[in-house]
């Protein structure tokens, strides 16, 4: 009976809503625009709360990286240090954690996780989410204010999380009281993380997260199958025309082979369209422009649309963003694609177990034509952050920080080996040089769980199965560094108003329409003017003001 009454009331309310909505025009006068208004945290605020740096490197590198490119290690150290002996979480209370992973989800009953938990002295229970859709999950999780003890949030997702700077103080613990200055000495491994990355972990003047320092400052690498290219006598491209030729030579639909996966990120950089800060650039004359407005960007659109039109991109990938690009690449169905440098090892290592000849290389960075320089977007010093759930008391925070201290153990420690390779005999065997060679169980159970969880001094380490990887990556990165863009907003956390954030998806959709041939390239001018009017110009003023406010 009660329910039926409330149902009637509810219907009444809805009816009222409908009636007022019909007269919406009359009421509109007293309504306001919805959405977050945006904000920025400046760089100077950050300085006072940073932890004091204390070098934690144990092993001298074989290939030195040009900073911010990490160092590479070809040889595996023969003796490992046992860096941490204390129990991380004496309370024994389980710790919940959320991390992304770009691959099949590992099993819940996981020997690798069990072993690390046992050594660490804490029970960390992971919820591992698909990395491609992690941002969607985060939006819902944050919006519901329902976060685990440790939440790993990648920097590129933060750009899509509106009101994030409001979410941080509401949901996460201020780490300043535990880590600022020499307080960090209680967590020596965290003291070994790069200061620039810590500086990037400040929200609203407070130290809010533990950073995962970048190992290579590039959002993408253009990968190709060097083994197949060599076999067919085809060289890696050095101009846009050669890239097109590469596509022509490798595409053979009758055999189920297409040259490319998605290479849009790379084509933009090859053409020279900069904009590391969410697409924004400060030009030499002081004018703030967006990548969308550059002629180089239009050139990139034209080129990419041509690749789609001539069907040089695998149809599964042309039709869905989430297509399984690594499977196609490993299976020899595509030969070139662009993605983050982190997947170099993640893709190569399991592939070489199936096909020993498999050789995945980054194409040496090149410009649209000879003599014209490309641009390399620069990622932030922190790739991702782990945040601690707010309001759990000092003792719990210290436990959680000890967990992150453990996960930050550097290369050359037993802890590092355990988190990266698992247990000797169960997950890997040592080859004659003492380097771990992983097995199938490792491939199944390893999902970078602990590595994503806590920052670690970044290193590039291969393995006996991929002996050239470390040198390949560091040399590629060192060479690319010459084209690295400087970001004038560096060290400032900029958060765009949500009305401007909302214009990005429709614009990206329209650009996709052009790339896939659903709309002519000539329609781009209209897309651009819509973007400007729909929030682009407002965003320009916003970004320019942030620079002015910081005296840059």
């Amino acid at each position, binding site marked *: 009976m009660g329910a039926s009454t409330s149902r009637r009331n*509810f219907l009444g309310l809805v009816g009222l809503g409908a009636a007022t909505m019909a007269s919406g025009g009359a009421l509109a006068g007293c309504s306001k625009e919805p959405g977050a208004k945006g904000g920025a945290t400046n760089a100077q605020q950050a300085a006072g709360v940073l932890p004091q740096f204390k070098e934690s490197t144990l092993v001298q590198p074989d290939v030195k990286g040009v900073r911010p490119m990490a160092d590479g290690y070809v040889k595996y150290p023969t003796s490992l240090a046992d860096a941490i002996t204390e129990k991380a979480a004496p309370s024994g209370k389980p710790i919940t954690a959320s991390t992304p992973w770009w691959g099949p989800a590992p099993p819940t009953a996981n020997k690798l996780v069990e072993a690390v938990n046992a050594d660490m002295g804490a029970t960390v229970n992971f919820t591992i989410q698909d990395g491609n859709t992690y941002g969607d999950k985060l939006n819902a999780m*944050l*919006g519901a204010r329902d976060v685990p003890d440790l939440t790993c949030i990648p920097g590129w997702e933060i750009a899509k999380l509106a009101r994030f700077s409001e979410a941080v103080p509401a949901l996460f613990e201020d780490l300043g009281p535990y880590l600022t200055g020499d307080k960090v000495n209680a967590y020596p491994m965290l003291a070994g993380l790069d200061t620039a990355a810590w500086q990037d972990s400040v929200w609203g003047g407070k130290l809010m997260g533990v950073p995962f320092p970048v190992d290579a400052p590039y959002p993408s690498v253009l990968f190709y199958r060097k083994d197949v290219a060599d076999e067919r006598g085809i060289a890696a491209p050095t101009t846009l025309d050669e890239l097109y030729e590469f596509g022509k030579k490798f595409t053979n639909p*009758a055999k189920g082979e297409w040259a490319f996966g998605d290479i849009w990120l790379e084509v933009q950089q090859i053409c020279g369209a900069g904009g590391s800060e969410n697409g924004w650039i400060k030009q030499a004359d002081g004018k703030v422009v967006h990548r969308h407005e550059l002629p180089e960007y239009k050139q990139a659109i034209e080129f990419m649309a041509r690749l789609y039109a001539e069907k040089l991109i695998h149809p599964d990938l042309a039709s869905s963003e989430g297509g399984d690009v690594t499977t196609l690449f490993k299976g020899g169905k595509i030969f070139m694609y662009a993605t983050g440098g982190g997947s170099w090892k993640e893709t190569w290592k399991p592939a070489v177990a199936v096909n020993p000849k498999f050789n995945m290389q980054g194409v040496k960075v090149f410009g649209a034509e000879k003599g014209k320089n490309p641009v390399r977007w620069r990622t932030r010093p922190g790739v991702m952050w782990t945040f601690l759930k707010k309001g759990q008391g000092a003792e719990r925070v210290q436990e959680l920080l000890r967990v992150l201290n453990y996960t930050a153990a550097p290369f050359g420690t037993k802890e590092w080996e355990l988190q990266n390779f698992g247990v000797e005999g169960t997950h890997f065997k040592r080859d004659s040089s003492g380097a771990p060679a992983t097995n199938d169980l490792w491939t199944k159970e390893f999902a970078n769980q602990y590595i994503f969880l806590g920052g670690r001094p970044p290193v590039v380490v291969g393995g006996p199965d991929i002996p050239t990887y470390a040198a390949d990556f560091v040399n590629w990165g060192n060479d690319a560094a010459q084209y690295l863009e400087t970001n004038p907003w560096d060290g400032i956390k900029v958060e765009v108003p949500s009305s401007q954030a909302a214009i990005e998806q429709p614009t990206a959709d329209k650009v996709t329409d052009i790339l896939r041939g659903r709309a002519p390239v000539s329609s781009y001018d209209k897309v651009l003017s819509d973007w400007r009017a729909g929030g682009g110009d407002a965003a320009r003023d916003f970004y320019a003001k942030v620079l002015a406010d910081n005296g840059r």
Partner: protein
Amino acid sequence: MSAPPIAPVEKRPKVKKNVKAVPRQQLSFGQRLRRDWPLLLMCLPAMMLLLVFHYVPALGNIIAFQDYNPFVGDDPLEAFLYSEWIGFGNFEYLFKNPAFWDSVLTTLSITAFQLVFYFPIPILLAILLNSIMSPKIRSLVQAVVYLPHFFSWVLVVSLFQMMLGGAGLLAQTVRQAGYTPPEIMTNPDTFIFLVTSEAIWKDAGWGMIVFLAALAAIDPALYEASAADGAGRWRRMWHITLPGLRSVIILLLILRLGDALNVGFEQFVLQREMVGRDAAEVLDTYVYYQGIAVQQWGVGAAAGLFKAVIGILLIVGANKLAHRFGEQGIYSKS
């Protein structure tokens, strides 16, 4: 074996009279409670379910009139209390946005299309299946056509992709024969056919269940009598089967109308990239991309409320129409 004697005929009306002698209004609340408590108890779990999962969340609709910010205050409840009231700002934002109306139009055209090309399929299937005599074949066919309902949309879409996609079975076969394969999965112009085919493949079998039950309720004697009078197969279908199904068909039609702005979410979000926003942006995906994904919760709630209001108006309207034609509809005033 003799049947137990039934009550003497003359006694039965008396019992009826006894019931009528105590009119319902004269029972006090306490008496009724004592009489009905087992029934009420049985209803309780369902009521609780409705309350907790439908009515309490419905209160959240107030954020349609707020610039809802989940991060103000110390907990989600305070976030409701402290978020700024902006009147009809969210609705204004929606109604001024041409992309919103595009998505409404796309949704309605898909509904209209599916009403014509999808809605009759389960009915036809049920009639067809009902005419199969062998119970073995019948249950086999039934099981086969039900099964896809239990597949997730991810599975259905990837299955279609593997069969009909650009690198799928069909395309590769056509290519090997030396022809250019048609673009089935990526053509925005034919997208409406594609989603309808997928929906039919997945759910037509499941939708058939209700009609099969209605068919079973038709008295076989009617068929026998009409057959004896010389009615053929088509006559029997026209004059017995379809009238027998009519009330169920109308009931489902009304419910479908109420769902006019609901064509599903997953199926479209999964295939959005393939055909672009213009063809695949339905109201639900619009809410997702312009409301939830950019934390404009208020805008999302406003769109949801808009959808609910339209749905209720359509249901009430369709029901009225059904009454006018002498049908029972989904409910009637007693």
